[in-house]
């Protein structure tokens, strides 16, 4: 497929596969984004809120006891779990919220899986005085109920989505349907590096602050680049955020998908490891699909990774070989959740627990001087119920 002259492509991946009604809205968004990209006043406001509201820069933390326990390389955690609202999602929610306000939109719709993007969007909308509607699969509402309450307390309306598997995939479809219906006055605040152009680029740019900070922090603390960078990948926004500023550096980058109950089981969420290219939610990327092009059900203990697609830039980085993608199962994520809690006093979200588990197995094979940087993208308060049940507490 020759995409050299097409906008919004990363190699053969990306594009804008949407109903005609959304094309003018995406063109409007693209123009608005191009405009603010070169506007220092926008970034001044974004950075000031990053500092005073989100709490940036987030620390780079040397997990000494975890590293000792592993007995190999040193594990460094980029503490996005310390962001206001508890995950990296707020970086993007606030950036797009500011953009929505600049575009004169009064109403914001969003989807959420784990609820972290929904909470971040609800907070940003409260701060910026925007009406907020969040679509969430009813299965996710059940298993991430604290976040449902948080969204409601922040003034957002949470609408349950019952169709299909009633998780993130259906929530995105329903948010897109709402946007098609209210396209004139509504801004769609998409939470990951997925969806039609320009979302994958725009979300990455708002999240790249993670990698820029981490690069400076590692350089200033150790005088050199890390030896590995590891991040979990559902849609892939925290991973793109930390990887992007290192793409030009000689550092191996590893994305960790969810193997669920195992890659040979009926359901997992390891899109880049086990899928093949297709089109879903407006973008051409790797997908978990059956032989007839129907999207397959997924499973992960981490609701934020429970998605059959992945950002198109990840698909591109997979095919070029710049980033390696692997999968960790539910049991591995639970194991690193437990270790990080007990050894470091940090309750991590189940999503980055997949990354931490893989980082531990990498560190084990590396010398003590080695540095493995993990993006600890969110905190685990939302997962207490799931983990307690799984560990029989």
């Amino acid at each position, binding site marked *: *497929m020759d995409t050299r002259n*097409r906008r919004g492509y990363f190699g053969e991946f990306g*594009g*804008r*596969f*949407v*109903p*005609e*009604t959304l*094309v*003018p*809205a995406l063109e409007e968004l693209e123009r608005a984004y191009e405009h603010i990209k070169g506007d220092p006043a926008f970034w001044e406001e974004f950075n000031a809120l990053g500092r005073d509201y989100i709490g940036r820069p987030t620390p780079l933390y040397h997990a000494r006891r975890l590293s000792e326990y592993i007995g190999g390389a040193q594990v460094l955690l980029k503490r996005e779990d310390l962001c206001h609202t508890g995950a990296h999602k707020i970086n993007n929610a606030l950036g797009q919220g500011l953009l929505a306000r600049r575009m004169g939109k009064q109403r914001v719709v969003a989807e959420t899986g784990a609820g972290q993007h929904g909470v971040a969007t609800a907070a940003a909308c409260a701060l910026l005085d925007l009406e907020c509607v969040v679509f969430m699969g009813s299965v996710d509402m059940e298993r991430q109920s604290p976040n449902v309450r948080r969204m409601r307390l922040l003034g957002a309306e949470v609408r349950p989505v019952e*169709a*299909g598997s009633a998780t993130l*995939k*259906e929530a995105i*479809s329903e948010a*897109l*349907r709402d946007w*098609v*219906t*209210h*396209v*004139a006055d509504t801004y769609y605040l998409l939470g990951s590096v997925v969806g039609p152009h320009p979302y994958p680029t725009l979300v990455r740019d708002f999240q790249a602050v993670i990698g820029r900070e981490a690069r400076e922090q590692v350089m200033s603390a150790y005088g050199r680049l890390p030896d590995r960078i590891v991040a979990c990948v559902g849609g892939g926004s925290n991973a793109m955020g930390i990887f992007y500023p290192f793409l030009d550096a000689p550092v191996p980058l590893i994305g960790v998908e969810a193997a669920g109950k195992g890659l040979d089981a009926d359901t997992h969420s390891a899109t880049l490891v086990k899928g093949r290219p*297709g*089109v*879903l*939610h*407006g973008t051409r990327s790797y*997908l978990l*699909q059956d*032989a*007839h*092009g*129907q*999207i397959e059900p997924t499973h992960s203990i981490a609701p934020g990774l429970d998605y059959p697609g992945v950002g198109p830039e990840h698909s591109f980085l997979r095919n070029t070989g710049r980033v390696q993608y692997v999968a960790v199962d539910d049991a591995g994520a639970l194991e690193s959740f437990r270790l990080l809690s007990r050894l470091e006093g940090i309750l991590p979200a189940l999503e980055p627990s997949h990354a931490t588990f893989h980082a531990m197995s990498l560190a084990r094979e590396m010398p003590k001087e080695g540095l493995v940087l993990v993006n600890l993208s969110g905190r685990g308060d939302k997962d207490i119920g799931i983990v307690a049940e799984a560990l029989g507490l």
Partner: protein
Amino acid sequence: MSRIPEAFGRRKALIPYVTVGYPRPETALELVPRLEEWGADMVELGIPFSDPLADGATIQEASFMALGQGTTPARCLEVAARLRERVSLPLVFMTYYNPVLSYGLEGFCREAARAGVDGLIIPDLPHEEGVELEAAGERHGVDLVYLLSPNSSAERMQAVGRHSRGFIYLVSLTGVTGARRELPPELESFVGRVRQSATLPLAVGFGISTPEQTARAAEVADGVIVGSRLIQLIREDDGYAAAGEFIRGLRRALG
């Protein structure tokens, strides 16, 4: 050669939509010949997709049920081929891009042509992304029909006028498929604007479910597409009496 022009030649075209495999595997085979008798000029055969984001609740449910019956693109091609032996009206597939992409663009167009299918409507494929499928359709004589909506710019109307084949599908409102109480007041001006930049026949769909709405749309357009209401009636009355009354009513309203 596509039969689509025949649908628009002699009268305002009535274009019903049915999801293949809903509610039973045989439904489309039984229903489409009746639709032709009742006055349809073309039929849209829906190939169900797991994530139909341009569709409202009715067609979503029909799609999930059809998939549950094991309906696949290959099965839909078979249904079309069997229908082709029994009806002379044009048949067009309506589906999403991924099942077609997964089948293979070239192979799908070749098999569609062989089954006697005249066109394809893919609501998540704007013309910028349709270059390859347009070419494959062209090679096999299958028309790729593009859509326009009320918020499409004049430039996009011109581009779709150049790229679309057979007809142009005008989405009556900004929204998803599904019966509505009223059509938007801007419908006439929307159709008028498209008319200025396109010479192809124009068919209006989304939200049309009554003889009054059908007659109003046909005042300005060349054809009218009805889907969700027909799906509801098939569900309510598997004997097709309600569907027959509905379609004959629309035919009378169109003249």
